């Protein structure tokens, strides 16, 4: 039975489809595996389901015991309230700007430096390479105070410059493009040179068209990274106008005691904050998985 279950597909492949389906016994082993996997999916999905349900209830329903696990009809009120109270349009806009600009900037400067490293011999190349590598070892968490001072000296507190530019150095993206360019056949550059194309022309008309899938994959991963930044925006912004959504959300948490426990409004706001990156993953999942698996360097 056990070995049958694993051998079936390869044997079935050689048989006509109808025969294979008629002869195959019910594969109980596989049904069990599917059930277990479905259970895992359910466990992982439950917190989001619960948040969605709460975001549609009234405060009374939220506080009910036993807890109500089915949606109610007050979604519009709650989402409207959350939107109004947190100035959601501003929060989402800021997060979007940070995510898009930092991702595009990262990709842009990484392509340029990877191109230089692969297609040029220049003095100090090894030094440049190591400097880029070192950024991996210096996450913002270990240089909090002094980076804050740099931003202060530049006058970049509470600006989009401060929110995006320091995120743009990326060893990961540079190495990804470096590796990709190294795999591009040498003949391409030779042909370009024979045609009299200069390096920038070669980058623009030959390399870039080949890199689109890599760029898209990386963009999805970096967008999510940028959207979910926390410590950096927390430090360098202190005005409501420059808040990103992940941080602005917290003002709605009903801390114990003093607040009306409006968890329904809180959950509505949380759903709005998590929806854009989750949608990006779901809609662009092929690119996302590719980006995730390849950008681990």
């Amino acid at each position, binding site marked *: 039975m056990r070995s049958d279950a694993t051998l079936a597909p390869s044997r079935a492949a050689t048989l006509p489809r109808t025969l294979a389906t008629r002869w195959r016994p019910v594969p109980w082993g596989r049904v069990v595996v599917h059930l277990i*996997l479905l259970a*895992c999916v359910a466990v992982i999905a439950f917190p989001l389901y619960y948040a969605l349900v709460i975001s549609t209830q009234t405060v009374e329903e939220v506080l009910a015991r036993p807890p109500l696990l089915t949606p109610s009809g007050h979604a519009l009120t709650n989402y409207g309230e959350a939107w109004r109270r947190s100035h959601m349009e501003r929060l989402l806009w800021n997060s979007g700007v940070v995510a898009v600009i930092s991702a595009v900037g990262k990709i842009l400067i990484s392509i340029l430096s990877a191109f230089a490293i692969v297609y040029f011999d220049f003095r100090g190349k090894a030094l440049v390479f190591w400097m880029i590598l070192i950024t991996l070892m210096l996450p913002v968490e270990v240089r909090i105070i002094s980076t804050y001072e740099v931003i202060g000296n530049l006058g970049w507190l509470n600006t989009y410059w401060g929110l995006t530019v320091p995120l743009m150095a990326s060893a990961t993206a540079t190495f990804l493009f470096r590796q990709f360019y190294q795999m591009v056949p040498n003949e391409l550059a030779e042909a370009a040179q024979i045609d009299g194309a200069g390096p920038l022309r070669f980058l623009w008309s030959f390399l870039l068209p080949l890199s689109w899938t890599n760029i898209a994959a990386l963009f999805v991963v970096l967008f999510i990274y940028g959207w979910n930044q926390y410590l950096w925006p927390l430090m360098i912004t202190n005005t409501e106008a420059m808040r990103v959504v992940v941080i602005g959300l917290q003002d709605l948490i009903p801390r114990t005691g003093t607040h009306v426990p409006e968890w329904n409004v809180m959950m509505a706001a949380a759903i709005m904050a998590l929806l854009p990156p989750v949608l990006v993953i779901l809609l662009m999942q092929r690119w996302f998985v590719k980006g995730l698996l390849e950008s681990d360097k």
Partner: protein
Amino acid sequence: MKRTVFRHRGLPYLLVLPQVAVTIVFFIWPAFESVRLSVYRTSPFGDKSYFVGLENFAKLLASPEYYHSIAVSFIFGFGVTGLAVGGGLFVAAFATQNIRGLTVYRTAVLWPYGIAAPVAGIIFLFMFHPSYGVLPYWLSFVTSYDFNWLLRGWVAMLLVIVATAWTLVGYNIAFFLAGLLAIPTSVLEAASVDGAGSIRRFASIVLPLLSPITFYLVVVNMIFAFFGAFGVIHAVTQGGPGRATEILVYKVYKDGFIGLNLGSSAAQSVILMIVVITLTALQFRFLERRVTY
């Protein structure tokens, strides 16, 4: 193989300039500055500072609070990594059964990766809510123990661990599935012809083949739990109750940004730098091995 290169004197420098400028201004310079600050004592307003040598480090290493924070970080780090990598491996174990719809399952578990850990933390904050949350309610049927994270440090710790692991588990599953797809089906079939059961097959063939990926994921999850998890702590527990969830990066922020003890905060940064360099070096060792394959 010799690559074709372009010849140009200034252009390559121009091309690497943006990357190098950002790296120097926002990474390398602040890192040096942190090291410098760590050997000074600065007044809270930053107007005076004295060179104190290694005093900041000595004070730190003599303070029980610092050791407490180290212990908390390790509990948090191992908790998150164990849950997220273990959960990933659990799903992967079933996915070896060469079944249909694996990519659908992958999508169905991958999306929490898009949720920022602090946002996940807020959702779990409500699920763990001592009076309204669904988890304490369910647990009250089993035990009369009071699962109140505001009063009990370990419940608070569990809360942030579960919330963080929730956002990471899909990432781990994606890596395990990629690793599983790389194992030739002929290997598994040969094993089942030899009469190896599915548990044997997993333990003696799949697991060893997945061990480099597992190692890599442990390191990456650890790095995230040590450094990336600042947000979830700040948004959910603020290090409390007491100091029960005060991980090292939160303490750096609290001492430096709120307590304005710049010297001590910088000294902590320098120690963390050593930790992250060690972890990253481990990560590279794995990648190097895989690259030479």
